[in-house]
C-alpha cells in the first residue's frame, strides 16, 4: 500500500473511532438523563425538598420538581433516538441543564451547605467535590456531542 493510501486508511480509522466514541457518549448521556429523570419522578415531594435545600431559589423548588424530571427524560430520549437535527438540540438542552447543575453544586460546596445531591432522586448522597467533577465531565461530554457538527449537518 502506498503512503498516501495508508494515510487515507488511517484517517478513516480515526474517523470511525471518533464516531463510535461520540455515539457511545451520546447514548450513555441520554440514558443517564432518562434514568435520572425517572428516579426523580418516584418521589416528587422529596425531590422538591432537595431542591429547596440548595437555597438558591427555594420558592421555585416545587415548580422545578414538577418540570425538571420530565425535561430530563425528554432530552435524554431525544439524545438517544431522535432525528439528527433534534439530537443536537437535545445536546444543547443537556448542556444547559448540566451547566445549571454544576453552578448549583459549586455554590453549595463553596457555601459549606451540607445537602443531599438529589441528582438521582432521594438518597443520592451528599454534594461533594466529586459531584462537581462528575458534572463537569458530563458537561464536557455534552459539549463534545453538541460540537460534532458533521453528524448533525442539515
Amino acid at each position, binding site marked *: 500500500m502506498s503512503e498516501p493510501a495508508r494515510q487515507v486508511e488511517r484517517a478513516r480509522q480515526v474517523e470511525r473511532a471518533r464516531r463510535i466514541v461520540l455515539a457511545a457518549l451520546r447514548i450513555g448521556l441520554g440514558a443517564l438523563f432518562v434514568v435520572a429523570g425517572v428516579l426523580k419522578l418516584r418521589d416528587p415531594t*422529596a425531590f*422538591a*425538598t432537595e431542591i429547596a*435545600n440548595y437555597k438558591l431559589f427555594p420558592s421555585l423548588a*416545587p415548580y422545578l420538581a414538577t*418540570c425538571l424530571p420530565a425535561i430530563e427524560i425528554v*432530552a435524554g430520549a431525544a439524545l438517544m433516538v431522535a432525528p439528527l437535527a433534534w439530537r443536537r438540540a437535545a445536546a444543547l438542552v443537556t448542556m444547559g441543564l448540566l451547566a445549571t447543575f454544576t453552578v448549583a453544586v459549586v455554590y453549595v460546596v463553596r457555601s459549606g451547605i*451540607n445537602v443531599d445531591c438529589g441528582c438521582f432522586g432521594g438518597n443520592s448522597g451528599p454534594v461533594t467535590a466529586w459531584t462537581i467533577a462528575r458534572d463537569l465531565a458530563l458537561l464536557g461530554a455534552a459539549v463534545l456531542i453538541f460540537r460534532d457538527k458533521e453528524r448533525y449537518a442539515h
Partner: protein
Amino acid sequence: MSTLVRAFVLVVSGALVGVAGNAARPHGLKVAAFAPPTQCSGAEGHAAAEVLQPSEATTLCGQAGVVIADTRPAPAFAEGHVAGAVHLPCDAGGQAAVEALAHFERAHTILVYGASTDDARAVADSLQQRHPAVRVALLGGGFQAWSAAGLACASGPCNECKASNP
C-alpha cells in the same frame, strides 16, 4: 428551524409533560401547598416557638408524646446529643427529613435545639408552622447550655431514637 428553537421546544414539551403527569398522579406534588419540612433561616409566617431553659426542658425528658430534635450537623450530633434526640439538621434531605418527621406524627410536644438558641430557631418556627396543634419549644442556650448544666447526653449515632420516641 434552528437548534435553539428545537431546544426550546424540547424544554417546553418536557415541562408540559411534567405538569400534566404530576396533575394526573394521585400522590403528585402539591405545588401551591409545598413547604420544605425544615428551614435553615428566615422561616416565613407568624409561628414562633417558645423558648425553654434547660432546667424547664429537662422535665419533658422521658414523657410520652415528647420528641426532642437536634438540628446541628451530623458531626456535632455524633459527638454528643441530648439523650433520645432525633437528628433533624436544618438542611435534612428529602428522605431523611421524611423519616425524622415521622417521629412527630403522634407527638404533643417537640423540643428543638441547635448549638445555640438562634441556631435552631428557624427549624423550630417552621415545625410550629407545619404542626400548629403541637407545642414546639426551643431549648434556650442550645446544646451548649444543656451540656454546661450537666444534663443527660448521649454520644455516637442515635440508635435508641426510634425505640425511645413515639
